[in-house]
């Protein structure tokens, strides 16, 4: 060939052939026709395709994210979340840190608790805290409710004495002058004048600001007063200029003054403080501890304090420990009392019964699926509709029907007595126990076993068994060594479906399970809708999820997940 343009290697550009030759020469990465590495070209070509695929699944992805992934994440979070204690009782938690767990804590702790509880009661948070802690130690709910009602009496001794000293202490204005930042006082006055002028009392007052100098002068009283002002403004939509502080603030002021603080206050307020400083050593004192014990003597019980201390961390393993019949105490992890150990038993029972249900579904479903897959298509379709028929009636109706059939005066017992298999005075207990749950759930879940089995068996051609027989195998050997191994993927799929469905089943065990035939899910439902202990419910749910995942993993190791087929 003399034509230089078409001769080999005459083109220096990227012709397809040159690229191929280059690729042959260089032992490096294979190049596409345009000289780029083939891998790169391929991934470029596939990118658009991938984006398109992503676009197609994105609505579902979003849906799943919102309705499935997020709730699961929330559940996992709730099972360890415990911020309510440290948020509601911040001072107490701090003060309680050094408590050894012996006897009752110091006066300091009681004072902190008084401050926390007054604020919490004002915000109505103490009852929620009470219910939360009641999960751990019964009685705490009523203790907190009761204390919340009376806690504002603590410190009244001091309030009375301050007011007796000088009636000016009754005035909210005194406190404002003492504590508020000067610019806030100005802003508040402007706001009040403006509101008066516009006759508009809906716009909120400027946020209270503490005078830094007051903060220094009264290390205990100032933060408390600031908290008081905030609560008054936010919760009560009122103004610190019009409300007398809580007694506990007076007590705090007393503490500051007796400790020698409160210097450098100017003006009228300075005069009041100076007078008070001189007077406080003569004040009658009252301990917060006594106040609490007066409200309820349970505050003297170390167990109560132990519970608060154990659950003061924002995250806790307490729910998970409860889920496996353990509890968190100040002395570490301990077993629950014998009569409260139910969850391990429930988990075991749930697993055991799910396995039994799965087993009976295999035993009952396999022959049916085998029959169906060997019938002509017309007949098998008809029979398949019968298999699916239960799906057309409500689960509740079917389960209730089992109640009618299985009860001691029910149809099945009647028939057995009539035949003479069972004595009339010795009728079988078929419902409100494990038997009832197993019977009803096997019935309900059977289609989930039959369908995957059927679709797998449908794909096993009849000639394998024929071949086996022609090779000399008896019908049983042919079935067992040739047909059955090929149907295992169907069994696998059916078992996974049935087991996972049954391990989390709720309605049927609830209706026919009585007390011995209920599942862990019934307990979870109880905690979600009745005891409202969502944290425990979440922990139980998380454990259930983990158990399923572990079993799934084991299953994958033993059977192999690629050995599962839905058809």
């Amino acid at each position: 060939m003399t034509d230089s343009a078409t001769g080999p290697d005459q083109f220096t550009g990227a012709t397809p052939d040159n690229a191929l030759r280059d690729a042959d020469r260089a032992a490096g990465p294979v190049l596409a026709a345009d000289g780029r590495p083939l891998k790169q070209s391929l991934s470029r070509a596939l990118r658009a395709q991938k984006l398109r695929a992503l676009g197609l699944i994105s609505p579902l992805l979003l849906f799943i994210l919102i309705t499935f992934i997020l709730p699961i994440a929330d559940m996992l979070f709730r099972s360890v979340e415990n911020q309510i204690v440290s948020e509601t009782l911040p001072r107490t938690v701090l003060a309680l840190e050094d408590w050894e767990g012996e006897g009752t804590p110091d006066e300091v702790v009681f004072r902190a608790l008084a401050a926390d509880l007054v604020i919490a009661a004002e915000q109505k948070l103490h009852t929620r805290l009470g219910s939360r802690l009641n999960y751990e130690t019964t009685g705490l709910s009523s203790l907190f409710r009761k204390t919340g009602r009376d806690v504002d009496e603590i410190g009244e001794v001091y309030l009375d004495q301050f007011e007796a000293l000088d009636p000016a202490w009754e005035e909210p204005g005194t406190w404002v002058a003492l504590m508020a930042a000067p610019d806030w006082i100005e802003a508040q006055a402007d706001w009040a004048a403006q509101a008066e002028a516009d006759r508009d009392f809906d716009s909120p007052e400027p946020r209270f600001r503490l005078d830094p100098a007051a903060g220094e002068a009264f290390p205990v009283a100032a933060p408390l007063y600031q908290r008081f002002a905030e609560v008054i403004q936010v919760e009560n939509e009122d103004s610190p200029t019009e409300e007398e502080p809580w007694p506990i603030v007076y007590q705090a002021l007393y503490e500051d003054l007796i400790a020698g603080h409160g210097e450098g206050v100017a003006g009228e307020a300075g005069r009041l403080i100076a007078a008070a400083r001189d007077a406080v050593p003569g004040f009658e004192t009252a301990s917060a501890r006594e106040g609490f014990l007066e409200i309820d003597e349970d505050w003297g019980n170390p167990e109560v304090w132990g519970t608060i201390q154990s659950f003061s961390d924002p995250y806790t393993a307490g729910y998970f420990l409860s889920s496996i019949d353990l509890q968190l105490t100040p002395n570490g992890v301990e077993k629950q009392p014998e009569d409260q150990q139910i969850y391990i038993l429930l988990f075991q029972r749930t697993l055991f019964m799910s396995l039994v249900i799965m087993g009976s579904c295999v035993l009952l479903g396999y022959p049916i699926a085998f029959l169906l897959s060997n019938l002509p298509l017309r007949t098998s379709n008809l029979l398949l509709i019968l298999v699916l028929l239960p799906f057309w009636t409500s689960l509740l109706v079917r389960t209730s029907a089992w109640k009618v059939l299985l009860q001691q005066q029910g149809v099945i017992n009647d028939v057995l007595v009539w035949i003479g298999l069972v004595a009339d005075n010795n009728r079988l207990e078929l419902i409100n126990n494990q038997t009832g749950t197993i019977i009803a759930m096997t019935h309900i879940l059977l289609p989930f076993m039959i369908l995957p089995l059927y679709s797998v068996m449908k794909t096993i051609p009849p000639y394998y068994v024929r071949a086996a027989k022609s090779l000399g195998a008896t019908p049983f050997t042919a079935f067992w060594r040739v047909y059955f191994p090929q149907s295992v993927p169907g069994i696998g799929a059916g078992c996974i479906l049935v087991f996972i469905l049954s391990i989390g089943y709720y309605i049927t065990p609830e209706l026919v399970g009585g007390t011995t035939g209920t599942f862990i899910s019934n307990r979870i439902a109880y905690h979600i809708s009745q005891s409202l202990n969502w944290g425990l419910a979440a922990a139980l749910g998380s454990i259930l999820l983990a158990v399923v995942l572990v079993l799934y993993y084991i299953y994958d190791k033993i059977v192999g997940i690629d050995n599962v087929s839905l058809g």
Partner: protein
Amino acid sequence: MPLLDTQADDAFVQFERVQKSYDGETLVVKDLNLTLPKGEFLTMLGPSGSGKTTCLMMLAGFESATHGEIRLKGQPINNIPPHKRGIGMVFQNYALFPHMSVAENLSFPLEVRKMGKSEREEKIRRALDMVQMGDFGGRRPAQLSGGQQQRIALARALVFEPELVLMDEPLGALDKQLRETLQFEITRLAHDLGITVVYVTHDQTEALTMSDRVAVFDDGRIQQLAPPDELYEAPQNSFVAQFIGENNTLDGTVSQLSGDKCIVQLDSGEEIDALPVNVSNVGDRTLVSIRPERVEIDPDLGPDSHTLDAEVLEFIYMGDVFRTRLRVAGRDDFIVKTRNRADQVRLSPGQKVKLGWLPQDCRALDP
């Protein structure tokens, strides 16, 4: 009965008046009589739906005969279940067990016969070597090509040393070249091992090249049972003549009949010489059949023989042969094949010629 051509006492397999109906309305197999001596390679050939597989299945025991008796070595086997018949079988789709390795597949028939491990291994090795697959024992069937799977299926059917092996279109799914290789291997093995084979196929070349005898099936009956050469050269009826090989047919009426010669008057009025096969009386309607390679152009056959006028329509050069299409007796599809010899004339379209043949090459069959 013309089809009972072998003596019953050296019969290895025998079908006697066997009928089969699946639905109770139509007979799929009608009155089948067939006798196979030991060591024979018999092929069942026929159009789709003619009942070949059904016959094989009845022999293997997977279908029961509606009527009649099947005997193996003189014993009626109608009531013996398939696994006790000891018949090897090769299926069209191989039917290798997908969950077992090649060696396990071969081991299966030996295990169910409770054979010891060392004996099994020896037999498996021999069987695999026999089909030249010695190195593939550890593979799964899915890791083999179609031809390799077929060899394994063959080895599996032979490993337990059955005396009778049935094969239902074993090579149907393979390409032509592979098919030819395996055809050769199957016949070689069958002869070396001395086994009796019943082989089903659609492919007439396969049937003709492999078999000792061929049974041509149609409409649930054996139309002819004969060695390949006889089948080709002396078809007993018009179905067999048309089904096997290429064939020219002409419709006519018998006008003279004397012993082994007859004269047929074609519908176009011309007369030709023919061999009476399926005609018995003067005036019978008949279909005469002549193989394209037995027709002579401008023949010199003697004074009293008949010839036909023909016009060349098309001349096709095919290398080893020439294929000429002519208009004869009002039909446009008359084919003549001539060998590519140095002195062979090449006809051109439009040319007028005369055609003739030896009377014994032209068979007067049923219409």
